[in-house]
């Protein structure tokens, strides 16, 4: 049985996706078709030659979720998109939707992380993956080996990466490598004329010398692939360890990331007396979301939609500490997040995160640890247990 006939005029995107069947230990291949007009998804099982999921609207998924290298969650099943399925999709996306890699140095991201992310997102550059990393001398040497850099610049970069935790970001966007390169070389008289014209917001951001020199970037596709591979393979060795002392967990929910609020929320957190001590972006399987939210089962009636929301896309997990070490971080941050219901928050606590960015009790922008004793449990779950 083949997929249903599709009118030629209807715009759709078709991808080859893989699903790892954990119990059987095999990878199965599917054909996923996304219909732009009604945000519907159709899944075709290539092995059994039959429709696995007929055309079904999934509001949580948008066009920007579909690109080679992304992971999507369809009714709790996680698919890895590995290739384009037809020439039309390849022609429309492959030429422009590229991956980029940047490594934000410690002296830059501690001051400008939120603004940096917000500007990239506003310029249609998605943050696909992110992780706070702490390099050891051995690991930074491995990272820099094979790079086409002079001894001096290599040594300087090594020292900067060893000075404190850095943040690695995998970017997805049109001509993202050229764009980042043009940003880094903005106002440089020595560099060749950039092939990409920067938008006014990018120019404004990279006016600052601290930002312009505050990150490492891969300047060609080969380096991007090599750097992403290194970060992926060595992530257990270089991921920044949690402090686990007077800290708490914060999760920026998938709907906020899809709405482009990641940078705004991080800016709000960092400008209100909090600091990041660990960070990673992950796509959680539904079973893990259920396990994580187990304590809310029977406590709040929105348990099931909360699980569905957390499983709907990539979320940003952060370990948060108070800038003032005398304060109790879990209590302070919970107060800063505000009531679970954004409508209540807007009325009673208008300066809280959920009042500013939340939409409903389920889509309330961020998760924070409610019980003080649960902080370490939740941190360990997100940073130690979930791979």
């Amino acid at each position: 049985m083949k997929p249903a006939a599709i009118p030629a005029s209807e715009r759709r995107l078709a991808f080859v996706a893989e699903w790892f069947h954990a119990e059987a230990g095999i990878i199965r291949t599917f054909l996923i078709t996304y219909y732009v007009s009604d945000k519907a998804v159709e899944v075709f099982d290539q092995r059994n030659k039959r429709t696995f999921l007929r055309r079904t609207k999934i509001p949580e998924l948008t066009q920007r979720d579909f690109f080679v290298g992304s992971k999507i969650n369809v009714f709790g099943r996680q698919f890895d998109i590995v290739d384009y399925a037809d020439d039309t999709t390849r022609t429309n996306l492959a030429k422009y939707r590229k991956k980029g890699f940047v490594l934000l140095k410690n002296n830059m991201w501690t001051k400008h992380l939120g603004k940096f992310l917000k500007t990239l997102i506003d310029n249609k550059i998605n943050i696909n993956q992110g992780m706070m990393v702490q390099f050891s001398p051995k690991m930074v040497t491995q990272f820099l080996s094979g790079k086409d850099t002079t001894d001096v610049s290599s040594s300087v970069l090594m020292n900067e990466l060893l000075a404190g935790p850095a943040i690695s970001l995998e970017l997805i966007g049109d001509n993202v490598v050229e764009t980042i390169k043009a940003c880094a070389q903005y106002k440089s008289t020595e560099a060749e004329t950039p092939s990409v014209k920067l938008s006014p917001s990018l120019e404004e951001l990279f006016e600052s010398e601290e930002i312009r020199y505050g990150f490492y970037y891969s300047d060609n596709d080969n380096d991007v692939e090599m750097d992403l591979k290194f970060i992926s393979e060595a992530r257990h060795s270089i991921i920044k360890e949690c402090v686990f002392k007077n800290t708490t967990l914060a999760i920026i929910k998938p709907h906020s990331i899809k709405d482009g609020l990641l940078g705004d929320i991080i800016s709000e957190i960092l400008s209100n007396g909090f600091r990041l001590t660990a960070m990673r972006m992950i796509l959680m399987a539904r079973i893990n979301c259920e396990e994580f939210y187990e304590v809310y089962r029977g406590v709040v009636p929105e348990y099931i939609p909360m699980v569905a929301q957390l499983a709907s896309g990539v979320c940003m997990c952060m370990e948060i500490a108070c800038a003032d070490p005398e304060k109790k971080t879990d209590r302070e941050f919970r107060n800063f997040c505000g009531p679970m219901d954004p409508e209540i928050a807007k009325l009673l606590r208008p300066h809280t995160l959920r009042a500013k960015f939340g939409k409903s009790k389920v889509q309330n922008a961020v998760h924070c640890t409610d019980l003080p004793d649960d902080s370490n449990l939740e941190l360990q779950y997100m940073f130690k247990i979930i791979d």
Partner: protein
Amino acid sequence: MKKSGDFLSLLNNRDLLKTPSGNSIVNFLVKPMSVEMNTADNLITGARRQRMMELFQEDRAWEAAELSRFGLSCIKAPDCYPCCTPFECSKAKF
């Protein structure tokens, strides 16, 4: 059952109790441990839920008190705030 040098890794198997095994260590040590761990986990989760419910009750009490100060005291259910719709909020006097 697939042989494993680390029997403790079997504890993560959700279907461990349903899977037959000819290994005496699995039958008389690992499976009882799994039962004990599940029981402990349920007890811990139950205690956490109880504390969470108490915390949420405190929050709701605070919210109700704060709402009454704005003249919005028509909360009808603990998990439903129809009075705090945008229309109702527009009628609030600050």
